[in-house]
């Protein structure tokens, strides 16, 4: 090995990231090269100081006690919505007849919906629980690009002009998704966006909104509507009627079309603000109807 190669690999050598063979070759070079050995000594010194610093400080006993107290308080609260979720999910099994072990190529739909409901109910706390507290669409778009590598279209406001509260990263059916929370009139509305489409299960109840197939599911009091658009999965969860959830879906679809049809490239398009007027979808029909 050359000195240049060895010095470039010293970090990996000290971080135990080299194979045995590679480490052996570096060691052989160091044994016979004073210059590289001195360079390594500087690195070793820094590593040593960082390690010496790293092992100081024990977690205070009071911190452990505080955490256990909070966990004990959290359990009943958690249990309340978990109880709701279990009953709702059981109902969903019975009413929708959707099987967990379906042979579709994507993740099962019930975990998708139940996960979304769980995240939605978990987010009905103070706004600071969100990872990003921002109503600025441009900032939100930048956050989604950085955190999830996607640049999806999304409405800046809800159906009734509900303002955006913020967003966080969630996991739906094992896939990472952004959860955008809008302040609804009485209850918040969650819009989940996943950077991948999600194939619908066979025989799923279907509606057509603004020419796009959407799939409504109801878990207890929470209405869920999801659809695929532009290579992304969109999912709405809200304590709302199916018509209201479909109206939000229509808003999202129209917003995406408007951006795609009248503006430039997706990444360069500024977000738009929806009107404050309630606009229900132009076409909602059941599967099979015209």
């Amino acid at each position, binding site marked *: 090995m050359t000195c240049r190669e060895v010095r470039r690999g010293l*970090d990996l050598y000290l971080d135990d990231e080299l194979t045995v063979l590679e480490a052996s070759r570096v060691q052989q070079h160091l044994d016979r090269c004073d210059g590289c050995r001195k360079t390594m000594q500087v*690195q*070793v010194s820094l590593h040593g100081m*960082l390690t010496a*610093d790293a092992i100081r400080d024990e977690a205070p006993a009071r*911190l452990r006690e505080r*955490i256990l107290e909070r966990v004990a308080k959290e359990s009943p609260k958690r249990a309340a919505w978990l109880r709701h979720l279990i009953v709702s999910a*059981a109902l969903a099994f019975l009413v929708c007849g959707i099987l967990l072990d379906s042979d579709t190529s994507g993740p099962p739909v019930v975990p998708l919906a139940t996960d979304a409901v769980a995240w939605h109910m978990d987010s009905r706390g103070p706004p600071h629980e969100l*990872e990003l507290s921002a109503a600025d669409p441009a900032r939100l778009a930048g956050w989604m690009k950085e955190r999830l590598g996607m640049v999806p279209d999304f409405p800046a406001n809800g159906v009734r002009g509900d303002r955006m509260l913020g967003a966080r990263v969630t996991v739906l059916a094992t896939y990472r998704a952004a959860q955008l929370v809008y302040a609804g009139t009485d209850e918040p509305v969650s819009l989940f966006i996943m950077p991948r489409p999600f194939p619908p299960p066979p025989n799923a109840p279907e509606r057509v909104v603004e020419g796009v197939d959407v799939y409504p599911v109801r878990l207890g009091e929470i209405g869920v509507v999801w659809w695929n658009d532009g290579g992304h999965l969109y999912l709405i969860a809200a304590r709302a009627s199916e018509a209201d959830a479909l109206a939000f879906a229509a808003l999202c679809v129209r917003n995406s079309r408007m951006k795609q049809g009248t503006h430039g490239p997706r990444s360069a398009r500024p977000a738009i603000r929806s009107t404050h007027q309630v606009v229900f979808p132009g076409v909602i029909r059941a599967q099979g109807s015209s």
Partner: protein
Amino acid sequence: MLADRVSLGMSEATVIDQSRDGRVQRFHEQILPHLTPLYRAALRLVSTSADAEDLVQETCLRAFQALDQLKDPAAAKAWVFAVLRSVSLRHFEREAGSIVAPVELSEARPLPQAPSFTNAAADSPLQRALIEEVRAATLRLPRPYREAIVMAHVAGFSYREMSQILEIPVGTVMSRLFRARRMLRDALSDTAPAPSKLVS
């Protein structure tokens, strides 16, 4: 499966209790053993012990709430550190106005010949002073570089684990670590005591 539980006639309250007890037990077994590493990492991500405690407390609470998502107990440490990272990002978001300006990168300069730290002991006052300087220099690093140092040296993660926790490619992990260490060397070479004073 939920449907099975319901169809078997198991009472709702029993299901809830078992679920809650199981989560608490898993929290004790899989998350609490990492409390001190989490606290050490938090102390190097934020500047005060009070902030570090708040960061760890919120991390543990969120980990408890989301514990059902942890499928592999062997991955508990990396998982809870990913939660810490997420929580810390929100902290930085709130404190955005007070983040210390980035340290300028310059040519590598050698550190003063420090006493051996290979046994990770800080015996003398000079050694302790130097370690304090390391801590201070780490806290002055820009966040992405500070995270890399913390995950590598405090948490002891591999490049691949860091890649998953920090959500960046392995190559970026390597470059961040390289640059972070160079910044630390620069900072320490400016502030460390003269080599002759370190010979104790």
